[in-house]
């Protein structure tokens, strides 16, 4: 007799296939970026750092990387603050209005990015309030897209949050604000950080909304990669992809750390 494996073989097979499907594009991009040949081909014709160097010396790509980083950083900060406050409101306020508001806040997740981008573009241009083709306009677009992710993660933490912790703090002499700052905020902070990192990753890779709001001198990395591939088939875009992946991996590692912390604290 041998022990039955607790996980059926079919599940294991599906997991392996899924993992492969997730990993293969990453491997392809990395290998393509390290290609020694002249064109974006796969499998690569030998390995070299030729296109990595080309990325690091390309004013277009470097500035796009910088803009993406800047836009992601600003919109993440704004999304985190707004999203955390919205989550707090949505979990604590009662009534029918709140249910409607919750659906409303989550809309950007389900709304196709092109629709949202088009809507913002038309609004910016026709309202003439100076947001068209501006950094501010682009950041607003990214805040709208990333905010729901912060709301979702923070809400998840707040739904399970034991209100008697706040009450205990109040009874021990804390003002409502002090109780929030010293207890609630501390306990949900891993969730807020996780939301922040999600927001950053999503903003950094955002394409559809950006397509409508960026201009040649306000080009994000995904836009630059797209444009580069349309006009030349150089592997620089793939090299840029390597740097994008590195940034995302760093963020993911940071997230998993925070999520672990959350478990230790017992949320």
């Amino acid at each position: 007799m041998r022990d039955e494996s607790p996980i059926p073989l079919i599940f294991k097979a599906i997991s392996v296939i899924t993992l492969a499907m997730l990993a293969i594009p990453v491997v392809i991009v990395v290998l393509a970026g390290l290609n020694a040949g002249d064109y974006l081909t796969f499998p690569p014709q030998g390995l070299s750092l030729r296109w990595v160097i080309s990325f690091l010396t390309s004013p277009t790509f470097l500035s796009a990387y910088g803009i993406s980083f800047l836009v992601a950083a600003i919109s993440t900060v704004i999304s985190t603050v707004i999203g955390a406050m919205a989550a707090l409101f949505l979990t604590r306020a009662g009534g029918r209005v709140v249910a409607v508001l919750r659906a409303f806040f989550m809309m950007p997740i389900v709304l196709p990015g092109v629709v949202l981008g088009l809507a913002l573009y038309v609004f910016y241009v026709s309202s003439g309030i100076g947001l068209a083709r501006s950094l501010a306009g682009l950041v607003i677009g990214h805040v709208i897209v990333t905010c729901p992710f912060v709301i979702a993660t923070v809400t998840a933490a707040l739904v399970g949050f034991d209100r008697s912790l706040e009450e205990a703090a109040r009874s021990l002499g804390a003002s409502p604000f002090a109780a929030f700052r010293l207890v609630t905020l501390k306990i949900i902070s891993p969730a807020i950080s996780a939301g922040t990192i999600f927001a950053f990753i999503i903003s950094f890779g955002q394409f559809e909304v950006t397509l409508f709001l960026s201009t040649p001198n306000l080009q994000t990395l995904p836009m630059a990669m797209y444009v580069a591939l349309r006009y030349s088939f150089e592997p620089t875009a793939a090299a840029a992809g390597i740097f994008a992946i590195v940034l995302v991996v760093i963020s993911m590692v940071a997230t998993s750390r925070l999520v672990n912390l959350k478990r230790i604290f017992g949320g």
Partner: protein
Amino acid sequence: MSDIHLKNLVKSYGENIAVAGIDLHIRQGEFFSLLGPSGCGKSTTLRMIAGFIRPTVGQILIGSDDVTRLPPEKRDIGIVFQNYAIFPHMNVADNIAFGLKLRKKSHEDIDRAVAFALRQVGLVGYENRYQRQLSGGEQQRVALARVLVTEPRILLLDEPLSALDKALREEMKYWIKDLQKSLGITTVYVTHDQDEALTMSDRVGVMQKARVEQVGTPQEIYERPKTLFVTTFIGQSNVIDVTVRGRQGERLSVDFGDSTVLTRAPVAEVSVGSAAKLVIRPENVIIGAAGAGLSATVVSETYQGALVRYRLSVAGQEIVAERQNQAHLARFSPGEVVGVSWDPDRSEALVA
């Protein structure tokens, strides 16, 4: 002074009335329990005293201060929750120091007070533990220490033992009571467990359906219940249908089947011929030889170790009797005809 006055306290949630007008005086230094079934409004009452719920109507005084409109942090009240609410992101020492830090005490004062509190609750050496490293009983001690270091005027406890296993519950019952007594702190204790209320309290307020039905010492509550609800909720009682025959001073004579028996008279006026309930605790029913008292037939006998329990049929109604299981007391078997009696002072007549 830190006695508590609740004056016509009402809390309603729309149609739903959680507390329907409570008037109570909880005395300085007393251990007062609010006892009642789940949903009767105990927690709502406690949370109004703590300041988490604003009463719809009524007034709360602590000493001579009207605190009805004060937020919880201004009331100087310590509360221990059912789940203890230990801050999970702080260790035991920081949990206990929380209230003192808010009061801007010096480092030395805080350290001294925390060390003292840890000794008081028997948790020396637990300073650096976190909530997830503490058992239920230990969490409860931390919750008490955290509250007591701030020297509150009032201590509130909401079902603090219900999350513990039975053995620990027994131990903590006496421990909390002793601690309360040694501190002399005015305490309001909420529970649905009559054992806890009777064992720990100086006085008990029995609640039902958003109201306080009776207030008294554990003995008064148990031995002189004023309502049918109180007599059936606390311990067990035989409730027998009788007809009022007449009042004789402190006594009331009632017709029970073909016989007339005496019982303690209710305070309220009762008219001759009206229906009433005769209430007797099983341990007060005396079983003797046939002919002594009312004639009864033994329906069943249940052996319970220290006690033997009999179901008896008396004039068509069932009476339960409990006797100590002692060698010199005779046992009866089903079908046997026996005599049943009781001390009139150990029975109550209640008007339904």
